């Protein structure tokens, strides 16, 4: 029996629903960030600290210090693999001295922030969503609101600031780990000594590349924290809701980070084509 095609009206309706949901979510996250800033600065204007320093440092430790081994190790292995794979191809043309520049530029501009962003979205984004989601379903967030305390500045701002400030540091750790792995491969397989390796890296790497990577990292940190906290505070439906929101948070954050990265590159290459 032949399958009947869905009528065009239903397809259009489906597209409409998806688009509306997407726009509502984008708007939700955007206003969530705006309201967090507003609430935080209002508090500062009144001469009060917006959140406890201990809360900020606890999140900094969780998001930053505790993530260093993971980010470093994964970037080290990726740098190793990349140097090996590109090295053998370049060796066929006698241009293996391009490996240090290739890997360092790729990591500093692109892979370092991107991989760090993906790892933090999975590791810290999920933790933020689960934590705030549990607080939401156990009425802790409502209790904070009931006391007249702004939950955005009290709960979201320290997390957002921690991730915003820590992302560039972790991206730098990722870059250093990858470049270090490349130096080992260059020494072991392609007979490039470490001082010469450093000269090649310095010759190929531009300040512009470093700044690009750092700017991206700041952006990714803000986006990941905002999505994770937004999903956490909009949890509905008890424990099952927390699980669903955590999954959704990780998927949304990773997709958004990759999307923003592409957008950033498109804009960047438009203004700086070389």
């Amino acid at each position, binding site marked *: 029996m032949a399958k009947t095609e869905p009528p065009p009206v239903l397809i259009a309706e489906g597209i409409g629903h998806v688009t509306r949901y997407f726009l509502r979510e984008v708007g939700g996250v955007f206003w969530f960030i705006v309201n967090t800033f507003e609430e935080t600065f209002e508090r500062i204007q009144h001469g*009060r600290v917006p959140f406890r320093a201990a809360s900020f440092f606890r999140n900094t430790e969780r998001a930053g210090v505790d993530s260093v081994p993971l980010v470093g190790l994964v970037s080290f292995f990726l740098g190793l693999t990349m140097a090996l794979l590109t090295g053998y191809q370049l060796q066929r043309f006698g241009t293996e001295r391009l490996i240090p520049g290739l890997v360092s530029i790729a990591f500093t501009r692109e892979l370092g922030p991107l991989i760090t962003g993906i790892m933090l979205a999975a590791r810290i984004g999920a933790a933020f969503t689960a934590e705030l989601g549990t607080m939401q379903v*156990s*009425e802790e967030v*409502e*209790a904070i*609101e*009931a*006391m007249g305390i702004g939950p955005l500045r009290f709960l979201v701002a320290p997390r957002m600031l921690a991730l915003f400030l820590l992302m560039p540091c972790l991206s730098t750790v990722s870059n250093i780990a990858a470049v270090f792995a490349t130096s080992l491969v260059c020494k072991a397989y392609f007979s490039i000594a470490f001082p010469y390796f450093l000269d090649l890296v310095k010759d190929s790497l531009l300040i512009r590349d470093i700044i690009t990577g750092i700017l991206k990292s700041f952006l990714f940190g803000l986006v990941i924290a905002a999505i994770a906290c937004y999903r956490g505070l909009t949890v509905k439906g008890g424990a099952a809701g927390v699980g669903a929101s955590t999954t959704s948070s990780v998927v949304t954050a990773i997709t958004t980070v990759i999307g923003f990265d592409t957008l950033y590159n498109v804009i960047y290459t438009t203004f700086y084509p070389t």
Partner: protein
Amino acid sequence: MVELRDVHMQFEEKQVLDGVSLKIEPQERLVIMGQSGSGKSTILRLILGTLRPDSGSIFFKRFEITRLRRRKLQQVRRHIGMVYQYSALLSSRNVRDNVALPLEELTDKPRSRRLSMQNSSSLAWRIRKNCCQKSSAAVCENALPWRAPSCLSPN
């Protein structure tokens, strides 16, 4: 002091409040009873402004809760005390920090001074007792008196 005028509230398909009106004067006590899901907590949340009604108006003193902006609403909430059924204490903080939270956030004095401002000997005893008994409802009661809420809503 608290007034609800023709309040309607619907969660998806379910009509929870259908034209509810009530008025509570100062010093008056009102008990709302009903089956589970009949909208008792919803009324408290509407008064607190954590939920917005589909239609109707809610007044607390001279403020219309449904029309207040976020900042003003936060100020008004400081005059309303809410005791939750399951206490809703911050699980990541110990008893002392839970009691100190509103003091830290809503007053200007240093934390140690603020805690000693409360009748400290009685408070310290009660906190120690709560720590031993893990009774969180009593911690809520401890945290409330300093705020002297005009309206207390036990859920």
